[in-house]
């Protein structure tokens, strides 16, 4: 009876698109990782683990790309969470009337195309003529004027900074919603018990915010591991390979026609993220009734 009212074929359209264009390429990619697939030959030969050996050998730069990706992901997770939380607390408890307006403004960069944000910051961070360095010079802090995107030591940090600028509003909004689920009475009770402001934050806010903080970390992680646009536009992976991440390297392999290594590199990320995703999605899709 149920199958008649709620027929399975209703799911088939979505399922077909999802399987053909999302799942299949992923698994097919794992299979092709063991081949010498490239643009210049129609033949595809099995080469065993060669591509993975290339990726994990110290002679190549791939390990650096993976390391850069992990560095980018962990820094942006940390910065967005800390600043997002501070802003959320400020907007929830600190300000009254204009809270909604602040929220709309701070969220704004999230809806801007990354490509555009990257272009604008390329101009702002220009060492000679950029707004930021001009600003530092005009207030007498010349020492702070840096070649933000061209110095290999700080280029990645600059990319992380711009990405935080763009993404922090998103995190703030989710944490803000989390804060709003905490009942006022808990704070009142804690205050009566003589808890200081810090103690209230540590023992009331933080524990009750764990679900929202988890979601935020997961979202930032999934985004950070597959970052592409921001790096591509700001630095193109340079100077040298200082800011190259997995997906800029993948794009590079794609342009050069080296499909075998490229698909192996994609597959490393695919396997890691699918396994991580398995546990994350199990949490996400848990039935509230059972939990």
């Amino acid at each position: 009876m149920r199958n008649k009212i709620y027929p399975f074929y209703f799911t088939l359209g979505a399922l077909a698109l999802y399987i053909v264009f999302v799942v299949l390429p992923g698994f097919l990619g794992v299979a092709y990782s063991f081949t010498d697939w490239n643009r210049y030959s129609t033949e595809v030969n099995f080469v065993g683990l060669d591509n993975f050996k290339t990726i994990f050998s110290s002679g190549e730069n791939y390990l650096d790309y993976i390391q850069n990706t992990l560095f980018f992901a962990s820094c942006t997770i940390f910065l967005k969470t800390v600043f997002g939380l501070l802003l959320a607390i400020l907007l929830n408890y600190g300000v009254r009337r204009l809270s909604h307006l602040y929220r709309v403004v701070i969220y704004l960069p999230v809806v801007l195309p990354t490509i555009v944000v990257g272009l604008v910051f390329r101009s702002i961070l220009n060492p000679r003529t950029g707004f930021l360095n001009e600003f530092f010079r005009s207030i007498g802090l010349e020492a702070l004027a840096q070649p933000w995107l061209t110095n290999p030591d700080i280029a990645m940090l600059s990319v992380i900074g711009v990405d935080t600028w763009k993404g922090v509003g998103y995190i703030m909004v989710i944490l803000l919603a989390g804060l709003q689920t905490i009942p006022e009475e808990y704070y009142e009770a804690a205050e009566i018990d003589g808890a200081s402001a810090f103690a209230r934050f540590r023992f009331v806010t933080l524990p009750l915010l764990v679900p929202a903080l988890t979601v935020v970390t997961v979202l930032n992680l999934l985004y950070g591991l597959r970052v592409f646009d921001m790096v591509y536009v700001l630095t193109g992976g340079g100077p040298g390979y200082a800011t190259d991440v997995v997906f800029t390297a993948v794009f590079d392999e794609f342009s050069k026609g080296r499909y075998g290594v490229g698909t192996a590199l994609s597959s490393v990320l695919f396997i890691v993220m699918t396994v991580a995703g398995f546990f994350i999605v199990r949490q996400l899709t848990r039935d509230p009734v059972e939990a």
Partner: protein
Amino acid sequence: MLLNNKTNKLLQGTRNNLIAIFACLLVVIPVYLVVVNSLKDSAGARTMSAALPQSLHFENFNTVIERGKLAQTFQNSMLYATSATVISSILASMAAYVLSRNKSRLNRFVYFFVVMGIAMPMNFFTLTKIMQLTHLINTQVGIIILYAATQIPFNIFLIYGFVDAIPRELDEAAIIDGCGPYRLFFWVIFPLLVPVIVTAGVLSFVGIWNDFLLPLYYLNNSAYWPMTLAVYNFFGQFQQDWNLVSADIVLTVLPVLIIYLLGQRFILSGLTAGAVKG
């Protein structure tokens, strides 16, 4: 203790507002720079300074629309974002409805399997192969289908939770009245799902409008380019003329900005739907 409680509160409030205003300024300054410089001449915009333009060069926008082929790219972006959003919203809501209403073993697995898609990164190499096999590569239909497919996991996740909130008694009443599955869904359930579908739709639309990656890989023909890819290419040609680049940016961002300001309620509620539940 010198200050009485009231002044203390007032001071705190002022300080908090100042911090919030500072945060807003950090957001607004880059936006301001782009807008101001889009109205200058080429020499004035060279350093993208915050100074106001000496005279207003509205003709920059005409130049950009012509040379950046913005009419064409706007149409493309609109076509991709609208069609893919409609397709994925309808397919995802149909699927989410059945998966949520009939929680059989198979359906629970299917739901889990689809939501896994949120975590899966793309493999552009094998996806190219599939696009070639299906003759969708370098076509507008292809990019629309691809966008619809990428939106499905999150949309199903978002809508699924919402279906439970619709009372089953409605289904039963409709069936007694002789509704078939299609009628039941499209006439009874779908209208009730509109709020969450609007949220899913706005999020999809903005995401697709802002995307740069898929056209970069799968649209070689510049006549098919969306605004994001076109603005990047325009920058490549007119790096020296930041007034024109700024004008191009303003026009590229304007549609999403309008949608954001009109639909912020839906955007902000959609984000929090997943977070607060857990």
